[in-house]
């Protein structure tokens, strides 16, 4: 009996130690970034080779200094607003476009459905970077360069999200749709009031992933925007990092600011992220 318990305890101990080490390994750049934003620049370099690298400045009044200076030097508030605007618009758009497309593929029978869906799946294997030039040409042709639309529109539809929504809708028995139809609901109402609420996990997953994707996007906004007033945070950070003089603690502070929304999103939607990714949108089961 004793041996069994000790084996169990041993198992718990060594897995905990391993997991903690792994977590620390992933956390340390993040911690370093946050504490570095909370000390004068000189201290960052002085502390770099000892454990103090992971401690903020001993002087509490120093903690917010990098933040206030970066807000003073650059229009950070504007960049944050831009990023929020792009990410929220893109997320709402992505949910609408992809869920409607998924609904179409799941619940309507039309000529060429299989072919189009097959092409869509095939597109999953094409790396996004190879499409940048063409997308840029399209954006240029329709004349949306240097407008927020250029950032938002191309990111809205995604084969993967359509695929997730299609699977989620396909899981719902047709009889539910038919019952709503007999209850007098129009197609759009069936979609909005019945089917979409039944796929909430997928909605949450796609929403979260879209938000994160837009928030983190760097290359595309950089390509389509030239006016720095329209820059999202990620592009602005590069700008800040390239504008002399560069203060490391200020760079770290703006990086910290850019990470906060992601951490919040992860905390609130982690459940759905794991669920949604695990089942690739297997409906509401």
């Amino acid at each position, binding site marked *: 009996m004793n041996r069994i318990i000790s084996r169990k305890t041993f198992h718990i101990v060594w897995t905990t130690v391993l997991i903690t080490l792994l977590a620390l390994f992933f956390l340390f750049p993040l911690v370093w970034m946050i504490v570095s934003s909370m000390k004068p620049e000189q201290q960052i370099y002085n502390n770099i080779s000892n454990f103090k690298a992971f401690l903020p400045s001993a002087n509490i009044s120093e903690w917010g200094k990098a933040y206030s200076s970066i807000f003073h030097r650059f229009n950070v508030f504007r960049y944050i607003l831009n990023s929020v605007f792009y990410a929220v618009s893109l997320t709402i758009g992505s949910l609408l476009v992809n869920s409607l497309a998924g609904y179409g593929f799941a619940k309507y029978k039309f000529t060429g459905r299989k072919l189009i869906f097959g092409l869509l799946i095939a597109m999953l294997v094409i790396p996004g970077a190879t499409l940048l030039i063409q997308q840029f040409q399209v954006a240029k042709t329709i004349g949306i360069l240097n407008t927020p639309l250029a950032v938002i529109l191309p990111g809205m539809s995604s084969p993967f999200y359509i695929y997730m929504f299609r699977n989620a809708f396909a899981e719902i*028995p047709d*009889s*539910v749709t*038919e*019952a*709503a*139809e*007999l*209850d*007098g*609901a*129009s197609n759009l*109402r069936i979609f909005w*009031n*019945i089917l979409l*609420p*039944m796929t*909430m996990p997928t909605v949450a997953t796609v929403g979260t992933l879209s938000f994160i994707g837009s928030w983190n996007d760097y290359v595309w906004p950089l390509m389509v925007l030239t006016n720095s007033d329209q820059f999202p945070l990620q592009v602005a950070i590069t700008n800040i990092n390239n504008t002399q003089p560069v203060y490391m603690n200020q760079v770290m502070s703006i990086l910290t600011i850019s990470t906060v929304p992601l951490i919040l999103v992860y905390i609130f939607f982690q459940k759905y992220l794991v669920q949604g990714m695990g089942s690739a949108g297997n409906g*509401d089961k």
Partner: protein
Amino acid sequence: MVKIDLDHVYKKYDNAKNYSVKDFNLHINPQEFIVFVGPSGCGKSTTLRMIAGLEDITKGTFKIDGKVMNDVAPKNRDIAMVFQNYALYPHMTVYDNMAFGLKLNKVSKSEIDKKIQKASEILGLKEYLKRKPAALSGGQRQRVALGRAIVRDAPIFLMDEPLSNLDAKLRVTMRAEIAKIHQQLKTTTIYVTHDQTEAMTLADRIVVLKDGQIQQVGTPMEVYNKPANVFVAGFIGSPAMNFFNVKLENGLVHDINGDFNIPVPEGKLNILKDKGYDGQELIMGIRPEDVHTEQVFLESFPHNVVESTVVVSELLGSETQLYTNLGGTELVSKVDARDFAKPGAHVKMGFEMNKVHFFDKDSEETLDN
């Protein structure tokens, strides 16, 4: 309360070779409870779905109160339907499930509440109105599905195997409830099932279907007592009717193996003779309940007695089902529990020949009238 007419209705699915429903003719009277019954794939659900508007009608006309409805959208047909898998909206409470259709039809809030309270009273759902479907048992869910249909006050109810997802005991209770609801509301109802007991107990008229074609339309007793053909005779009644290939000679029927040789009652014999079946082969059908083992019967009708060995016997409490072999086929008899016999036992059984049915050997149509 409305009248429903189906005239020469056909259904063929895209890419299908054959018609799923062929030349379907039926006229349903107001307040009638019609049951479509038949084996899987007989077209009963397809027909129901055509009435609901969920499937297109390939050929023929479908009328409600004399108005052709072929191309009317489901939502404009004013039909309420109950599905086999309940088809409830899982994210809505029981109350909202029932209110959904009413809200869409712009019924006032107080009116909706009144209707839902009344329906939930009938169905015993009052205390569950705030729950979501996931927190209900199968029977309760089916009740909500019924409630959703009731509150609509639609003149037509369609029910697509509503009880087949429930366990046997609950099915019997719900069957009685459906009958009760129909007595109260008198809504014209079309009910699809493959369970002949449900058909017998609920229907005003039964429509027996096979391979997309109507085999017989009639009251439960008509379908039971005067089956139109071998299929209907075999499908209605449990256990199923026993069939023998027999030959009629000198007023007697005998099977091909010579296991029995029984006189045919005069009335039936005359009909068969008039139709020219004397000396011909026919199919004879006898229901398990018309095979007797009581001593009194065996003594009264000594010429009707057959002998066989019991293969399987099932004691059901009030009665016994004996499985024997006779004339090269299985003979099932439903007898009194006192006449229980163990497998291997030799038994004497008497055929109640007045209740026997005769069918043509080739067309399998009835020869009784």
